[in-house]
């Protein structure tokens, strides 16, 4: 019941006129970001973060999280109308969304996508509302060793669950940690890896990295595909909305499954993109008539969208309670909290009640307002997509440069952002994942501090991480995750050995060894 009261109080905070205004502005900006190729949730929030430094933290986080919801909604528009996923997590939406649009059912597809997004987000928000305080209370008992164990689990899960090669995931992550270590060591005051450059004293700001990696990198990648926008226009009539809603009601099982997949993938750092694919695959496999999929099945739109939103929203649960973001965008939001002097983690629920519950309440409101906003403004967004890329590309570049400059008002940052852009492009092309890099850059200092404090307590013995049952089991889980790819490889070898006969050599991609 206490949660309920807190939530009501939160609604009081979020329902102020000013905050509602920021909510709508954030949503519109978010949809715009989601619609434009090259701007995504993570770098959209990163670019706009400096603008919010002057606001009070509650309004700022409400606006930023609404940008995030907006971006999640926006990705669906381009996928359905133009067959261009505006965001990686809406790739699966194109499979059935675009065929639906081609058959003249664009409005139904869009309604499905928006409604599913709403349902997924709502499910996740309810989960956050009731789980977050419990988790936070539990996490209050964590010492540095437990915190480090949780962080280790986060990072090791990347290696274990990533689609990208394990060694490349590890390399990207370690680069992130290395970049995070640059600058003054907060414990000893010593300078690390600055090589006499005054610009490096502060270290690398993750915002700069995010803007470069996701913004510039994405433009370069988009350019390579030679974009031509040829899409259908759409307007959504209320009658179609009602009709679609009635049809969607019959697919409640798909929704429930997608919500569960999404929440699971969001809380563990799987993220929205794998969640959407997994959910699509599940819906297809469990469907009575799988052959309809790919030709405009309504569940084929509902399943990935629901899961993507559920994942995107529930990614905020570990961020708020443990200070560990479940997605790159959540990582940027977390960075924002730290800039405002709010230390994410369990103490937030004790010390900053207004802030936490205002944010959670704004998740409910933001998604309701978002649903209404996108349903009514679709034609407008479709029109924006008709602006040629030769106009949009330079404007996005300008926005990235402004975003990078405004973080610290530093020219050096702008150049660094450019270098990160090229790095991001190479990473994408060569299948290095970027999420672990960003996460390591954000969490690097915190992880190191926990690591050192835990070791200080134990006089340098690594046994401290296995000392308590909690941190011990987390660490074991982390190690399992870390060596998961290796286990998979061994199992495949073992399976291949006895039947090494007539079967035409299966393994198309040789598995990486690791010494």
């Amino acid at each position, binding site marked *: 019941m206490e949660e309920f009261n807190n939530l009501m109080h939160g609604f009081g905070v979020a329902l102020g006129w000013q905050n509602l205004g920021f909510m709508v502005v954030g949503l519109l900006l978010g949809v715009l970001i989601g619609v434009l190729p090259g701007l995504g949730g993570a770098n959209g929030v990163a670019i706009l973060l*400096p*603008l919010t430094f002057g606001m009070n933290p509650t309004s700022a986080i409400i606006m930023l999280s609404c940008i995030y919801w907006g971006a999640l909604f926006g990705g669906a528009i381009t996928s359905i109308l133009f067959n261009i996923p505006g965001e990686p997590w809406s790739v699966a939406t194109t499979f059935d969304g675009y065929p639906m649009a081609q058959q003249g059912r664009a409005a139904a597809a869009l309604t499905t996508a928006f409604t599913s997004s709403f349902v997924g987000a709502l499910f996740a928000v309810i989960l956050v509302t009731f789980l977050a305080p419990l988790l936070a209370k539990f996490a209050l008992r964590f010492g540095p060793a437990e915190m480090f164990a949780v962080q280790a689990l986060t990072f090791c899960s990347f290696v274990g669950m990533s689609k990208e*090669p394990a*060694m*490349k995931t*590890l*390399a990207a992550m*370690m*680069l992130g*940690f*290395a970049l995070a*270590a640059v600058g003054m*060591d907060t*414990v*000893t005051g*010593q*300078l*690390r*890896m600055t*090589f006499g450059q005054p610009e490096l004293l502060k270290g690398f700001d993750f915002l700069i990295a995010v803007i470069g990696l996701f913004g*510039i990198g994405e*433009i*370069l990648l988009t*350019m*390579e595909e*030679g974009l031509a926008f040829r899409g259908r226009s759409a307007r959504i009539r209320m009658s179609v909305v009602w009709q679609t809603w009635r049809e969607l009601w019959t697919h409640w099982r798909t929704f429930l499954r997608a919500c569960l997949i999404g929440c699971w993938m969001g809380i563990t750092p799987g993220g929205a993109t794998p969640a959407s694919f997994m959910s699509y695959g599940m819906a297809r496999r469990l469907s009575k008539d799988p052959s309809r999929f790919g030709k405009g099945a309504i569940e084929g739109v509902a399943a990935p969208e629901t899961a993507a939103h559920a994942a995107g929203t529930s990614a905020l649960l570990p961020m708020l309670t443990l200070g560990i973001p479940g997605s790159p965008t959540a990582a940027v939001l977390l960075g924002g909290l730290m800039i405002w002097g709010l230390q994410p983690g369990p103490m937030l629920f004790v010390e900053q009640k207004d802030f936490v519950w205002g944010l959670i309440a704004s998740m409910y409101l933001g998604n309701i307002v978002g649903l209404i906003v996108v349903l009514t403004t679709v034609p407008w967004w479709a029109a924006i997509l008709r602006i040629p*890329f*030769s*106009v949009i*590309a*330079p*404007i996005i*570049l*300008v926005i990235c*440069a*402004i975003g990078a*400059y*405004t973080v610290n*008002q530093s*020219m050096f940052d*702008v*150049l660094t*952002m*450019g*270098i990160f852009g*090229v*790095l991001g*492009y*190479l990473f994408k*092309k*060569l299948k*290095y994942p970027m999420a672990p890099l960003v996460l390591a850059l954000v969490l690097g200092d915190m992880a*190191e501090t926990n690591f*050192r404090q835990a*070791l*200080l307590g134990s006089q*340098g013995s690594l046994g401290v991480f296995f000392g308590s049952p909690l941190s011990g089991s987390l660490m074991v889980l982390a190690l399992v995750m870390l060596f998961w790819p290796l286990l998979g490889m061994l199992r495949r070898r073992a399976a291949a050995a006895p039947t090494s006969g007539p079967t035409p050599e299966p393994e198309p991609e*040789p598995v*990486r*060894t690791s010494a």
Partner: protein
Amino acid sequence: MTESPPDDGAPSAGRPSSRISSRGPELALAALLLAAAALVIVDSLRVGHRWASDGPQSGYFPFFIGLALAFSAGAVVVDVMRRWKALGEDTFLDATQARSVAAVLVPTALYLGSMHWVGLLAGSAVLIAWFMKRHGGFGWGLTALIAVGVPTLVHLVFERGFLVLMPRGVWVEALLTRLGAG
């Protein structure tokens, strides 16, 4: 960064157009990561990577990070070697793609690199105009409208609205003072 000359040795006879195979970029990026790892390790050794009387030294944690980075980048190199043939067949970029990427990369590099002198607003106008004329084939009127309009909007929103000053640029600053004096 790895703007290597196109076609770093892909002698496949049947392939007509020039292209960049995945080998070069894979190795280049792995080498870059190895170099970064070396920097991290060397610097950790400099600040001390051991256990001091008052706890871990500054290089304690980064030292392990450097080792792990070297290990993983090394593993990527080994993997590239093992798949040398297959990667040679892999296309990283074909000629058309390389040209489109360069069409963005080169102006962007110039835009960011010249910002110290030209400033953000003037540079943005030139960048937008270049893209619209060169790749969009727009008329001068519309090009001028957008190329001037966007920086003006930025000026109004950021410099007037949020009081965040954009970099003016050394040259533009000099020009403005001369105009002011003259």
